[in-house]
């Protein structure tokens, strides 16, 4: 993009955000009823400061981030491993690929109560739930990546005397990487969404729990303060994921 275009795009994006904030500000100041459910921005901001100063924000965020990290680690390792193994043979591929995509199509939310029954109200149930949900897109994309490898590339590298490891290193891995990385990114955001969703549904700790609790107590300003903190954290995570992704792509 030309620098001038970039400035234009950035100013349009900025204008959209400013318009939304402005709409929020003016609508909540013109209607008392609305401000009951959607408090004006400055009240949300002061609640945010209170929550942050009290240390609740950090304590809850620590629980949630740790839960997400553990769930994602399980999903990423499991998904890539299963995807790789399944894609290694045509028979396994025919057997498991439809099974995995079928399972992924089922809304796993229905089974959330089961996760609570098995793993309790603590972070463990959210780890299991997030890991299960994120496992599928990662496994499916890894399968797609490894089964799209060009047979001719494999033949060529074999004719040069590459052993199994060298074939993987020079052909299979770089060929499968772009699609696999996309799966890892999709899985990451599904993981965040399911952990937070799980926390709001049934939990004793975490950011999601704090949001649900403030809503139950009709402390809407506090609820939005929590939501704002989630938005901020997700933005940062988003940037980190994109940075990691472009770095991985460049190094391959």
């Amino acid at each position: 993009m030309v620098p001038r275009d970039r400035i234009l795009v950035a100013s349009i994006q900025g204008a959209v955000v400013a318009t939304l904030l402005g709409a929020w500000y003016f609508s909540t100041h013109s209607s008392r009823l609305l401000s009951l459910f959607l408090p004006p921005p400055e009240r949300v901001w002061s609640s945010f400061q209170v929550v942050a100063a009290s240390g609740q924000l950090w304590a809850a965020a620590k629980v949630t981030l740790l839960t997400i990290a553990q769930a994602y680690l399980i999903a990423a390792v499991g998904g890539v491993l299963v995807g790789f193994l399944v894609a290694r043979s045509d028979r396994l591929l025919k057997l498991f690929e439809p099974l995995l995509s079928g399972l992924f199509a089922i809304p796993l939310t229905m089974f959330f109560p089961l996760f609570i029954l098995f793993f309790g109200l603590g972070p463990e149930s959210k780890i299991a739930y997030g890991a299960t949900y994120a496992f599928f897109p990662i496994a499916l994309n890894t399968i797609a990546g490894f089964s799209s490898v060009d047979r001719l590339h494999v033949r060529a590298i074999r004719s040069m005397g590459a052993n199994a490891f060298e074939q993987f290193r020079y052909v299979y891995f770089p060929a499968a990487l772009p699609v696999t990385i996309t799966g890892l990114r999709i899985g990451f955001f599904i993981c965040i969404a399911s952990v937070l969703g799980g926390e709001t549904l049934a939990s004793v700790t975490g950011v999601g729990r704090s949001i649900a609790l403030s809503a139950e107590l009709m402390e809407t300003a506090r609820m939005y303060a929590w939501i704002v903190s989630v938005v901020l954290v997700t933005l940062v995570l988003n940037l980190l994921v994109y940075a990691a992704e472009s770095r991985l792509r460049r190094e391959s």
Partner: protein
Amino acid sequence: MAGDAPIAVVIDRVSKTYPGRSAEQRVTALEAVSLSVRKGEFVCLLGPSGCGKSTLLGIIGGMLAPSTGTVTVNGTKVTGPQPRNIAFVFQESTLLPWYTVLENFQIALKLQGIGASAWRDRAMQALSSVGMEQFVNHYPNQLSVGMKQRINVARGICLGTDILLLDEPFAALDEQTRMVLGEDLSVLLARTGKTILFVTHSLSEAVFLADRIVVMTARPGRIKASIAVPEPHPRSPDFMLAPEFGALRNELYAVLRDEIRQTVAAMRQARDAGG
């Protein structure tokens, strides 16, 4: 030129049958093919599509196992890929798209066991011999099909094997590019003295490049005729205008015509039987 040179490749009654679920699905690609190639000889394999030319090349290179028969290369029976003796050149798309041109050479030479100090000089030398040295840091997809195939052929040659197997290397190129590349190949290969087996569909290409043209029958592939081209290498483009060139081309066409008709008839028959 190669008339009294030692034998480099011996193909002894090689057959290849691809198994199917039923008898009708089983395909016999090659049937009792025997052929000897002398060191330094340039042999073209010519035949209708599906006659097993590429299968034969794969068996010589140890990429495929024959159903019966044996292949011997430099006195040793072939049982698997032998990168030190034999290099393959496939279509241009076998350059790995996620590596630069130079990295593609680096990997090929590293697999060949050529050390960190020597590979770069070898690669640069090979690339400049095809006039591609200024594209070392390009990715294959940034280059035209013709440029890629120049590089791919250069990679095959620079591996330093005695034997080079080329599997329809110019199939994806347009007529003019393949003529120019064919001339370059003739010059390059005359210089290196390699033993070459070259699979092609093109009659002109075969006559222009080969010392000997082996014509194969429609499936199952057998050797139908072997025609010598007694013109020394490197050959100039003028050879294509010489009367001998036209005569050889016509002779080849006469031998091949029946096989092509037979292939087409078999395809029609299969189509009518199937639908």
